[in-house]
């Protein structure tokens, strides 16, 4: 199963079921083998890649629109960055698609590892002594105010 995860990772690509030899090399150890081993691998990868290909529920979800996501996340990207990101993100999101195959019927989502509950504090303010140090970190500070530019209404 570790194999399937590793190989599925390498092969996750919407339009391809084959892996270039250079990719296989990353998985093979330097002390191992032969072209026979490689061919066996590539046949196995082809089988696994098909099982994780995009003909699943994930086709209902729209592929990521990187420009729009960047706007939502308030990150500016150059056109070159958008292009580079788009390829990489699509591959990864596609790879996420294998989670759609899992039967999670009546499985409770786990927010985090098991926890003792109720570690909440009193809703009472405490003074933090080292305020000068906080002020020193503020990029634009004009006594008592953090200075920021105006906010424009979105069209």
């Amino acid at each position: 199963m570790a194999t399937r995860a590793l190989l599925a990772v390498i092969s996750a690509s919407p339009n391809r079921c084959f892996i270039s030899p250079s990719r296989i090399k990353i998985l093979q150890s330097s002390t191992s083998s032969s072209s026979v081993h490689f061919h066996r691998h590539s046949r196995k990868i082809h089988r696994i890649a098909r099982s994780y290909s995009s003909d699943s529920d994930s086709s209902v979800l729209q592929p990521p629109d990187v420009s729009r996501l960047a706007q939502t996340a308030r990150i500016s990207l150059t056109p070159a960055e958008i292009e580079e990101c788009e390829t990489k993100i699509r591959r990864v999101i596609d790879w996420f698609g294998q989670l759609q195959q899992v039967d999670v019927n009546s499985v409770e989502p786990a927010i985090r590892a098991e926890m003792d509950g109720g570690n909440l504090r009193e809703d009472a303010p405490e003074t933090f002594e080292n305020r000068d140090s906080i002020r020193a970190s503020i990029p634009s500070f004009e006594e008592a105010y953090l200075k920021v530019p105006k906010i424009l209404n979105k069209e």
Partner: protein
Amino acid sequence: MLSTLQPPRSLSLLPLRRLRNSKTIVSAASSTTSVISPPQSQILTTRRSLLSGETTAAEIAKSYLSRIRLTEPQLKCFLHVSENVLKDAQEIDQRIAKGEELGPLAGVLIGVKDNICTQGMPSTAASRILEHYRPPFDATAVKKIKELGGIVVGKTNMDEFGMGSTTEASAFQVTANPWDLSRVPGGSSGGSAAAVAARQCMVSLGSDTGGSVRQPASFCGVVGLKPTYGRVSRFGLMAYASSLDVIGCFGSTVADAGMLLHAISGYDRFDSTSSKQDVPEFQSQFLSVDHFESKPLNGVKVGIIRETLEDGVDSGVRSATQEAASHLEALGCVLTEVSLPSFSLGLPAYYVIASSESSSNLSRYDGVRYGNQVMAEELNKLYECSRGEGFGGEVKMRILMGTYALSAGYYDAYYKRAQQVRTLIRKDFKAALEQNDILISPAAPSAAYKIGEKKDDPLAMYAGDIMTVNVNLAGLPAMVLPCGLVEGGPSGLPVGLQMIGAAFDEEKLLKVGHIFEQTLKGSSFVPPLLANVP
């Protein structure tokens, strides 16, 4: 030279004067053997030499600072070396001279990963967006170290905000592996691991969200200890994925990693996810090898995770793991194979959860209250430009992936589903750990690879986390310790064995790990770089 390891706590209760006059020597000298001796705890060696007057904290600090000066140009482990190391060491010496009580970490030199806040010292998470940031407070873990006499040597290099497995994603520098300078030290706590391996510091703190302490420990041939989620306060650890992050420990021995963990563990009211579980005296596990019985781990049930030894794992790593399993058997363990059917789902589930949570956690870096600001005419533009210029490529990518996975209409398909997979993974581990005391696996599918080898292919890099992410999803404790060498580099490359325990059962991990380490013959895990460095 073998020595009796004694719990430091008992030493700190004795007034110093009495110890100096005492004829009883703490360490039991035994005949030197011709084989490589088991590694010694640096924390205890330091304590012994300070208390006996053999050396001073300042002398020790000077020798480490000199080693840093000699090796840093090649290794680049540190983003910042403290200006106060000698001063802190001299304070310890003054306390010794006055006969004052010494904390268990007195004089111990500690590296701190740069995503852990250290008051007044730059803490950047290896990101340009925090390039000149100096926090106004210490992380709880750092505060505890200082209270116990530990000296923070400096801040270590890492992948930006913890996102990466090699330190290549640091905005400032790439750390080299002390075993082979053309290879990565692992990540994201690569600087902390390499610094301990190169003896630039005695122990160090890292953080582990998906393997970021355990994988570099394996690559650098040191011990890496990831505690149970909630064992150590996350207050002051810059959050990456809040349901997965933990602060972890590096040491050159299991005992050192364990003692450091003990120092930083415990409930903290500033972290609502920190646990109120008692912190046992881990140190009681660190008996001297002289006191081991013939089968010191008799009856301990060890499960080898079947899915971690299949294809896709380097043959050298597989052999080293199998040899480690034989060593455990020789010590009396009962080994069986266990299967974790959900194992392979951990990797995509982890990356969905981690990128989703990080997209939320990193929204605080907006250039307004701290960090680098890129001024603009309009507020949203200020956010966009500050973040666009401040964050590196990998960070931006993960934020965007997370933003996508959490978008309206996609939450159920991705984040919620990943959380459900997390439940399946937890159940599998729980079942396996009911039948076994610990589980073992390799720490990574290969030894350290070359710098630049996986930089351009995110999925190839993510694949390397396969052995470690499930443990974070389940919130369990795990430790990696060096178990062998494989071919590569000038003298071989270290490979680590991962041991996984039940929740809050660090004690058992430390016991098994310590006995394994102290009885392992044949390998000395000191990188060749140190042969010519005093």
